[in-house]
């Protein structure tokens, strides 16, 4: 099989699909290659939040603003209801020292234009009437939103295909070869395709694809386990998560009173209700290779946290658990860039927990790069080269 495509997108998760959709929309001949099924990696095993509050001020927060506006448009544009909602979000604070850290964090986000504030106990109760007593304050942002990632992917597939997008599933790439002005992708069944450009959107597997063309992409799988409740009425106005995890990232010394298992699993409490009424209780952040299994130890800690914050939940049922592999880059930021010395090879991966939030803008940025349009963000912060520069600096100082 021999065919020249404008762009071959590798990876059928939300990032690859968004990229393929925006490229197909401008008339490019696009093929999307997925070794398994649509959304079988992180995009199908995550929660549904478009979070602003979790983002450090900087490029990711800027991109999230535009991505949110794009989701609003996609909810009209795609031929599937993506369940976009602007419910707002709260980070629950239980500890005076955590409050101080969060006040500083919130101030920085406000300086970057995010509408977020600290609210006191009384206002927390108004928004979360079932909350336990020990919560002393909370952040609140009306900006935090949510979307059903599964429906978004279905919409990208369905609308993409009607724009001419070709999707190849269950095909495994064996090798990638750079030709004079195009790329040749070889499959393990002996077939191949040719494409002018390639976008590596393989998520947790992006580094395997990188190896085929001799580049090092510092992305590793980071497992997240989530428990799912039965469908129950909404128990609070917004989705919530706990300050503990954000504080642990910003000020590790304040998290030391936690036990080893908790730290090893990297648990940060996140609690959101999907549009169908199930609550998603998460989540772990574990470096355990490509193992996606869930285990009782982790689920038990997360469930206990949920009951601790909302005692009424002890009556609700857990119906399922799942685990997904978030693509975690070495510095926690996505890689959205063309690769130096590999003309026509782009990377859109490494979003870790930001994949759903940043999918639309990522797809659009890659389409802009491929079509040589001006980009008004500082893309150096998301380039692959930033890691080389760091390596170089380390070597120079050594």
């Amino acid at each position: 099989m021999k065919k020249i495509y404008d762009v071959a997108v590798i990876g059928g998760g939300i990032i690859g699909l968004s990229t393929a959709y925006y490229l197909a929309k401008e008339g490019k001949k696009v093929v999307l290659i997925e070794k398994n099924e649509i959304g079988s990696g992180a995009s199908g095993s995550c929660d549904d939040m478009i979070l602003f509050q979790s983002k450090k001020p900087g490029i990711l927060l800027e991109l999230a603003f535009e991505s949110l506006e794009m989701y609003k448009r996609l909810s009209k544009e795609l031929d599937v209801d993506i369940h976009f909602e602007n419910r707002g979000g709260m980070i629950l604070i239980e500890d005076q020292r955590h409050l101080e850290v969060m006040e500083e964090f919130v101030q920085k986000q406000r300086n970057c234009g995010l509408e977020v504030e600290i609210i006191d106990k009384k206002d927390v109760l108004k928004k979360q009437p079932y909350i336990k007593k020990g919560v002393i304050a909370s952040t609140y942002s009306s900006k935090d939103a949510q979307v059903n990632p599964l429906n978004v992917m279905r919409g990208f597939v369905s609308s993409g295909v009607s724009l001419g997008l070709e999707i190849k599933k269950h095909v495994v790439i064996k090798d990638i070869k750079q030709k004079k002005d195009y790329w040749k992708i070889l499959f393990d069944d002996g077939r191949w395709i040719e494409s002018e450009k390639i976008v590596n959107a393989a998520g947790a597997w992006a580094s395997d694809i990188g190896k085929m063309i001799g580049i090092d992409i510092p992305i590793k799988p980071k497992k997240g386990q989530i428990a799912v409740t039965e469908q129950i009425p909404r128990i609070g106005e917004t989705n919530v998560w706990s300050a503990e995890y954000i504080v642990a990232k910003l000020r590790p010394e304040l998290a030391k009173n936690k036990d080893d298992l908790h730290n090893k699993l990297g648990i940060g409490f996140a609690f959101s209700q999907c549009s169908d009424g199930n609550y998603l209780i998460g989540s772990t952040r574990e470096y355990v290779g490509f193992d996606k299994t869930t285990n009782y130890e982790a689920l038990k800690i997360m469930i206990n946290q949920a009951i601790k914050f909302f005692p009424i939940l002890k009556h609700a049922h857990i119906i399922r658990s799942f685990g997904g592999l978030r693509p975690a880059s070495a510095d926690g930021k996505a890689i959205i860039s063309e690769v130096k010395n590999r003309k026509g090879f782009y990377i859109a991966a490494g979003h870790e927990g930001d994949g759903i939030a940043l999918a639309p803008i990522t797809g659009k940025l890659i389409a802009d790069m491929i079509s040589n349009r001006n980009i008004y963000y500082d893309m150096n912060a998301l380039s692959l080269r930033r890691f080389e520069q760091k390596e170089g600096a380390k070597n120079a100082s050594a």
Partner: protein
Amino acid sequence: MTMDVKTKMEGFEMSDEIICRCEEITESEIVEAIRNGATTVNEIKKWTRAGMGLCQGRTCRRMIERILARETGIELKDIKPSTYRQPVRPIKMGALGE
């Protein structure tokens, strides 16, 4: 298989038949997902919620596999079942967290 018989019955509207009873997903919704590009049971599940409810597909799993086989021509024996995960049955959070 009963469904094949039904499709042959003239004037019989089979598409409103509920396949997933927990989530009340009809046959036509499943067929629509397949026409949108779903080719596996997991994709049908993720796109329609069929098999995502209280019983986690215990009732409808096999029927969905048959619809997929009928619509795509994939042989039933080649269709991979959707993923099984713990817990096997719904459990009260109060009991799980003990």
